[in-house]
């Protein structure tokens, strides 16, 4: 039998663990169409049944106020899954049942997976599961998902109830129900595909999405009922929320006994949120994640990059056709390009793995709480600090890390400003140059560039917040879940999937980019193969565009090297060596003989700001859309030009040579 199952529940209830238990390796993570919320789907073959499972976004409710809620409820309404598994946190029963009631209003075929039974026990919360089952009329499967306890019972239940759906209407206080019934009578039969009771409730709650689906005259009659309700019990939205919680309180009186107990979570929280040590702890943990991601992935990244380079040079000459050879196996050839893309993957996987571990533990919420106040003043959301720090290593995983930022505007600001953080690739170029020009002071110069990146990030964020992304700062409401050991296999799986996703998406952008650049470098203006950079089309373009950068004082080679940097910032070093006809070891010294330190500083500033590498552009396109990717490219070029020019100007004014 083919069964469609949707997993629904509050955030932090262990939904992804259940999902992973069910699907194992047979899962795929993508996006909900047109949105940047993760869509995780998978399959399971069990006792001859083909079960398709979709993990809906974690939500506290099913209103129309957030993207996650709309995705979750639209899926249930439109796709009509055979079974909805509502994952409920046993240690947080009251709040979790709120969503259960909403799902029940929808008329979905619900099974409750009562997870974290061990945590409830640890917190001295006793739940009478059988009683609760009877009162709700919904089957309940107790479980401890990380230990796969209860999973078999859950899968059996899914099959059982897919065949024999549970239908049960849970009614609230009559005081409220009478209004629901009234609206229901008005719209009965007039709404396609929607559960009438649910629609009635939504109309009373002033749900914009549902209101759109009713005719004007029906709507006005419903409005009357709503007015009456308002007069009797007050704001209907609040009254309905109240009614649900009242019912929950009644239910819990019978089935839940809770003892006040100080938990390990409480004790740890008083430390992690310590007035003075909280932030140092946060910085330390961030640093550890960073080190783990970049240093531990380094051998794998290097191996892949180098490996492909080895294969490339081994195969070079094999075709016998010079230009084909160059394009396929040359320094800027397809194979090397592939190697370069692949070399990002271990980094993304390890970084995401570490972040996932820390997030699942529950710490990230605390960090957001600690940092939010400070970050707000600087135009960014508290959660944006992590992508910012990651950006110091590489902007690509940093941009993916912005997914945890709930507010759309905040997220876009974080994405668009992220490339301003000095990434590892730019560091390669900078550190090579800095020694030749500034000797001992090189370190300070480098530091100044880092700081410039940070300062610009805040300035641009504040400006964006006041203009393009104008809007009130979204209210900061965040649940701090109890600390729990993360499940490494789940985190690893998530990281792996994301690595795969990156490879397929980024590869599509980078490889063509590299190919084009390679072609430009080796084709002369007479469309013949050439090894002399001066004759290539790239040089022609460089010389043609030269007037644009006249105020900055570059020669065409610096310009072309910068153009090459669009593919990958590491390339700027190698490309400039190629263009000046010297080896990579000597390029810094060569440039030192041609340019003053001020001019070079201005150039470095330009390279810092101008355009993110093509992989990053790809990531921005993926996470924010083409519009914002283009926006980022444009504003950064303009900003880079401006600041580089200012640097020159101020330098001259100050009499710096």
């Amino acid at each position, binding site marked *: 039998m083919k069964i469609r199952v949707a997993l629904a529940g509050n955030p932090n209830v262990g939904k992804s663990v259940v999902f992973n238990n069910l699907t194992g390796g047979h899962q795929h993570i993508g996006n909900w169409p047109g949105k940047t919320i993760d869509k995780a789907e998978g399959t399971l073959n069990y006792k001859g049944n083909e079960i398709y499972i979709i993990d809906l976004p974690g939500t*506290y*409710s099913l*209103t129309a*106020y957030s993207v996650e809620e709309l995705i979750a409820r639209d899926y249930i309404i439109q796709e009509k899954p055979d079974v909805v598994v509502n994952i409920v946190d046993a*240690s*947080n*029963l*009251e*709040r979790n049942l*709120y969503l259960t009631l909403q799902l029940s209003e929808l008329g979905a075929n619900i099974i409750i997976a009562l997870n974290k039974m061990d945590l409830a026990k640890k917190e001295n*919360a006793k739940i009478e599961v059988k009683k609760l089952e009877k009162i709700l009329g919904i089957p309940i499967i107790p479980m401890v998902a990380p230990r796969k306890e209860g999973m078999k019972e859950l899968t059996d239940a899914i099959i059982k109830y897919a065949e024999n759906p549970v239908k049960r209407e849970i009614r609230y206080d009559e005081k409220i129900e009478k209004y629901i019934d009234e609206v229901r009578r008005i719209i009965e039969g007039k709404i396609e595909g929607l559960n009438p009771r649910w629609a009635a409730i939504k109309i009373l709650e002033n749900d914009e999405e549902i209101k759109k689906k009713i005719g004007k005259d029906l709507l006005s009659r419903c409005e009357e009922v709503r007015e009456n309700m308002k007069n009797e019990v007050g704001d209907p*939205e*609040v009254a309905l*929320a*109240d009614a649900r*919680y009242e019912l929950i309180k009644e239910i819990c009186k019978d089935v839940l006994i*809770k003892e006040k107990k100080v938990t390990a979570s*409480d004790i740890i*929280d*008083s430390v992690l*949120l310590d*007035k003075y040590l909280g932030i140092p702890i946060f910085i330390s943990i961030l640093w550890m994640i960073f080190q783990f991601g970049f240093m531990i992935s380094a051998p794998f990244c290097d191996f892949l990059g180098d490996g492909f380079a080895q294969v490339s040079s081994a195969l070079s000459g094999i075709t016998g056709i010079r230009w084909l050879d160059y394009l396929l196996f040359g320094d800027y050839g397809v194979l090397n390009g592939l190697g370069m893309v692949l070399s990002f993957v271990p980094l993304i996987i390890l970084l995401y793995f570490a972040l996932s571990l820390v997030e699942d533990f529950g710490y990230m*919420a605390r960090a957001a*709480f600690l940092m*939010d*106040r400070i970050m*707000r003043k600087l135009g960014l959301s508290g959660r944006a600090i992590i992508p910012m720090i990651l950006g110091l290593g590489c902007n690509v995983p940093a941009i993916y890390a912005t997914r945890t930022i709930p507010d759309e505007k905040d997220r876009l600001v974080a994405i668009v400003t992220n490339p301003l953080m000095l990434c590892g690739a730019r560091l390669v170029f900078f550190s090579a140059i800095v020694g030749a020009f500034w000797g001992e002071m090189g370190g300070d110069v480098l530091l100044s560039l880092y700081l410039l990146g940070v300062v610009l990030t805040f300035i641009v964020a504040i400006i964006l917040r006041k203009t393009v992304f104008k809007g009130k*700062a979204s*209210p*900061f*409401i*965040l*649940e*701090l*879940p*109890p600390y729990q050991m993360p499940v490494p296999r789940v985190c690893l799986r998530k990281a792996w999937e994301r690595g795969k996703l990156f490879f397929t998406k980024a590869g599509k952008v980078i490889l063509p980019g590299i190919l084009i650049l390679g072609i430009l470098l080796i084709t002369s203006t007479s469309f013949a193969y050439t090894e002399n950079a001066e004759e290539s089309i790239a040089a022609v373009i460089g010389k043609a565009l030269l007037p644009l950068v006249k105020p900055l004082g570059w020669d065409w080679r610096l310009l072309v090297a910068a153009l090459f940097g669009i593919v990958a910032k590491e390339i700027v070093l190698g490309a400039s060596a190629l263009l000046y006809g010297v080896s990579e070891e000597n390029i810094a010294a060569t440039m030192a003989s041609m340019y003053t330190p001020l001019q070079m500083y201005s150039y470095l500033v330009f390279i810092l700001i101008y355009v993110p590498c093509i992989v990053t552009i790809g990531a921005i396109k993926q996470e924010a859309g083409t519009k914002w990717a283009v926006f980022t490219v444009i504003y950064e070029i303009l900003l880079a030009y401006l600041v580089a020019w200012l640097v020159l100007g101020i330098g001259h004014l100050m009499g710096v040579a």
Partner: protein
Amino acid sequence: MIPLAFAPEGKILRVVGIRGGRGVMQRLADLGLLPGSIIRVVKSTGGGAILLELRGSKIALGRGISMKVFVEVK
């Protein structure tokens, strides 16, 4: 009756009113913060951000919201 932002740590409080826009009120309601709810302030940072205990879970509220939620000591 005082804004949550100024409430003392550790005491049990009752929510008496929420002065906020549609979206904010709904989000708070979904989490169980309604007029009449019983809460306890776990931590109060100097700047108005509050960590509170509500229906068995911990919720953090920023300054903006904690100024709009009114409570009284139970």
